Structures are given as C-alpha cells and as structure tokens.
C-alpha cells in the first residue's frame, strides 16, 4: 500500500528524469550531459574505492571531508555564540536597546561580501572560511534567539519566580526551552546559509572541497563532473535539511503537540 502511495506521490520524478535523459541525448548539447552520464561520472569520481572504505575513493574523502568539517564546525560555533549571546540580549531590554541597531546592520550585510574580506584578513585557508561562515550565519540564530527569549510567556516566568528558581534554573529550564522553537528556526536558516557561504568561500579561495571541484570541473570542460557536483550538493542540502527536521521534530515534540491541543 505504502509503495503504491509513494509511486502515486513521486511519479513526476522518474518522468522528469527520463524526459531529461531523452532531451539531452537528442540535443547533444555539451553543457547538458544526459543524467546517466552524470551518474556514471559520479560513480567513477566518488564511489569506486575499496569496499573497506564503503567504496569511497580518495577523491571523495578529499572533496567531502574538509567541506563537511568546515561546515559543521562553523555552524556549531555560530550556534553556540549566537544562542548564548541571544539569550543574554533577549533577557535584558536595556542591553537589546543598546545593541539593536548594530544587530540590524550586521544581519543586513550580504554575507558573501565578507568572503574577500576575511580572505584578505586571515589569508587563504580554513580560518578565513570558518570566520566567513560564522560571521555570515550567526545573525539569523542571534535574532531568533533574542526574539524567543524576549517573548517567553509571562506566566512561565512568574511561575519560576513564585517557586524561587535560581538564575541558572530559570535560564536552562524555562527561558531556553521556551525559546527553543525559534532557536531551531534560526539554526535551520543558518544551516542552509552556511552551505551557500561554504561553496562561495571554496570556489573563491580555490583551496579544495566540493565548491572548488565544481568550479574546476566547469573551467576544464568536464561538464558531467560539474553536474555531478551539482547533484551531490543538492543531495547534501537535502540530507542536511531532512536530518535537521528530524532532530527538530524530536527535540520540539512538546511544541508541536502543545500547539495542536490548545
């Protein structure tokens, strides 16, 4: 039953792929290799390694490894700083009054503009890319956390006061959990933005990673390779997003259910 329903839901995907395959074979346009050729190249590039390494090739390790490490490190760093600062600012009207204009300005700067700046400041390499990612994606986390911490239900806070919660308890048991739905919204935005900045930084700095592979494939007329990179980046974006939604669903189960019943 489920399989039939899935076919009913997904039928357009194979249809599109087949149509794409036929169209590209008929057109014989070099920029648009048939999906089958792209798939073959993807297998050759990344999935023809020894079984002991799950078939991953050397190239797969060097393409994905550093990219993913930078992505997660930058995202985690931005999350920690953004949430900590956001809770502090959100809990104090005074502090948020002082910082509001600066935060508005900071988040309005188009993050890719920072790529050349940090590359010039920190020289080529991982620190510059990390700095770009952290500085570029921290704003949605910060702004959402501030908003979440500021709009905690008054009765939640009064209950904490009545029962004499300590400051730490108030933060960890009341304010942060209450702000969690908004924090997660910020973290998800930040994750997709991080992937974009990672690619820009890698392409721009030309120092390895998937973004670099993408551009060098394009420059050396390896169009199937280029499409392969595009597909993999799409898959990566899709997987990250799905994994994050799964996490969110687990952590915020109370939120979804509480909203459904009230």
């Amino acid at each position, binding site marked *: 039953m489920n399989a039939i329903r899935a076919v009913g839901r997904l039928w357009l995907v194979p249809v599109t792929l087949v149509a794409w395959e036929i169209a590209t074979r008929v057109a014989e346009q070099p920029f648009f290799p048939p999906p089958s050729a792209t798939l073959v190249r993807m297998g050759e590039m990344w999935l023809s390694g020894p079984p002991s390494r799950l078939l991953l090739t050397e190239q797969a390790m060097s393409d994905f490894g550093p990219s993913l490490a930078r992505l997660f490190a930058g995202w985690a760093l931005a999350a920690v700083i953004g949430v900590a600062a956001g809770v502090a600012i959100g809990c104090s009207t005074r502090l948020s009054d002082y910082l509001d204009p600066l935060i508005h300005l900071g988040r309005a700067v188009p993050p890719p503009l920072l790529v050349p700046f940090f590359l010039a400041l920190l020289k080529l390499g991982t620190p510059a890319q990390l700095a770009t990612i952290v500085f570029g994606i921290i704003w949605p986390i910060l702004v959402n956390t501030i908003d979440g911490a500021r709009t905690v*239900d008054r*009765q*939640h806070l*009064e*209950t904490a*006061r*009545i*029962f*004499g*919660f*300590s400051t730490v*308890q108030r933060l960890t*048991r*009341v304010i942060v*959990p*209450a702000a*969690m739905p908004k924090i997660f919204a910020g973290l998800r935005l930040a994750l997709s933005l991080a992937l974009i900045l990672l690619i820009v930084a890698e392409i721009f700095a030309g120092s390895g990673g998937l973004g670099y592979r993408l551009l060098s494939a394009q420059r050396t007329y390896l169009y199937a390779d280029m499409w392969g990179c595009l597909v993999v980046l799409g898959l990566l974006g899709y997987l990250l997003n799905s994994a994050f939604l799964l996490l969110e669903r687990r952590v915020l189960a*109370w*939120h979804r*259910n*509480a909203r*459904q*019943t*009230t």
Partner: protein
Amino acid sequence: MLEITDLVHSYGSHRVLDGVSIRAAEGELVCVVGPSGCGKSTLLRSVAGLIRPTGGRVLIDGRPVERIPDNLAVVFQDYSRSLYPWMTAANNVALPLRRRGLDRRRRREAAMAALDQVGLADAAEKYPWEMSGGMQQRVSIARALAYRPSLLLMDEPFGSVDAQTREDLEDLVLRVCAHHGMTTLLITHDIDESVYVGDRVIVLTRSPTRVAADLPVDLGRSRDQIATRQLGAFVRLRAEVGRLVRGGSPTPTVLEKH
C-alpha cells in the same frame, strides 16, 4: 497568619484596589469573590509579591512581603501557561523542590507522592499536552502541594475546566487543604463555588475595590456536592453573596442566623 491591611494599587491614574483589608487565620480557606474586573488578580499578585502595591501592607506570619516569600505557592487559572510543556508532569512537580534542598531521589519521591494525592500517580511521565484540562490543573495543584507552602494562593483555579471537572477539583482542594492544614486564599468569580469551598467568603465591590462583606460559612468542614448545596444555610448564604456581588448592601438577618 495572613494580614492584608489597607491595600491600595493603581495602574497610572486608574485606582484598582482602594483600601482592601483581609485576614486569614492559620489553616483557614478564605474565598475572595467579586464582580469581574474588580482587581481580584491584582490583589493576589500583590500578596504573592509579583507586583509591589501602591500602598498598604501585606504580612505573612507577621513578616511584610517584600520579595516573593518562599513559603507560598500559586495555582493559576491558565494551567496551560503555568505548567511547562517541555517537561513531564513529574518533572514539573519536582523542579521547584530544588529550592527545598532535596536531592534528586527525594525530589522524585515527593513529586510522586503529591501526584498520588491528586490521583495522577499513573500520569507522572505524561506531558501536560497529553492530558485533559482537569488533569493539568491537578498537576498544577500537586506542584503546589509538593512545595509544602504555608500559604496557598489560587487564582480562579477552576475557571477553565468543565462543570463536572470543576466539582471534582473543588472537592480535591477541600480535601488536600484540610489534610495539610494550609492557609488558602482562593480567588473566584463564581458565587456558588465561594460558598461551597470557603470557610469564609470575602466579597469585593466593583472597582475601585473595597471589601463589601466578610461572611463566615457555617457549613462544617465536610461538604458534599449534592447535600451541602441543598442545605438552607448554603442557599441563604449564596443568595446573600450574590446580592453583595451585584452591589447590594448586607442583610443583617442572614448573618444573625449563624
């Protein structure tokens, strides 16, 4: 035990409380009833120390309320906003007990005992949103009980539940307050309820609010939803409170009969 003297509170130029004085003896269950919008909640929030009244004094056990006293618990009307939806019932009840210096195991035991008292021993691991409104309010009451306050404040605690649940909760409150000997101040707009639950009923006037009357309820401590409500004394008292809430003046004969 609780002494409220000449309490005055204004929001800007709008005077809500205009010299309210209420006393409650140790172990007494005092109901405060008044027309809607008469500042009942402001009164409760002043007693709890959540707001600082413009004037007057609140003494608990002879000590003035300056910050939030540590021997006081509140049950709010809106349980869905007072319980934390990200914690199970047991954790909601156990969390405030850290202030009592209990270790994890003892907190857990006290929480389970309190949940048992309100008839929710089986629901300890449920989240508030998995429960009916009446069950959530029971958790809220269990949280107050486990905290072992000497003064319990209840702000329209049965205002958001259906009639049947309301009666069950009224009896629950009567039982546990008597059992623990807690002094309780219960705020309500329901005339029937104030007479049924209270040892004394304080009737407030419209805003700016004063005390219209302070009526003792001579119905004994054990009450029954059907039998008590049929007693002549209950009916007379309810009529009297109703008249006062609508702005009438006290009838001396009703008081004399007690």
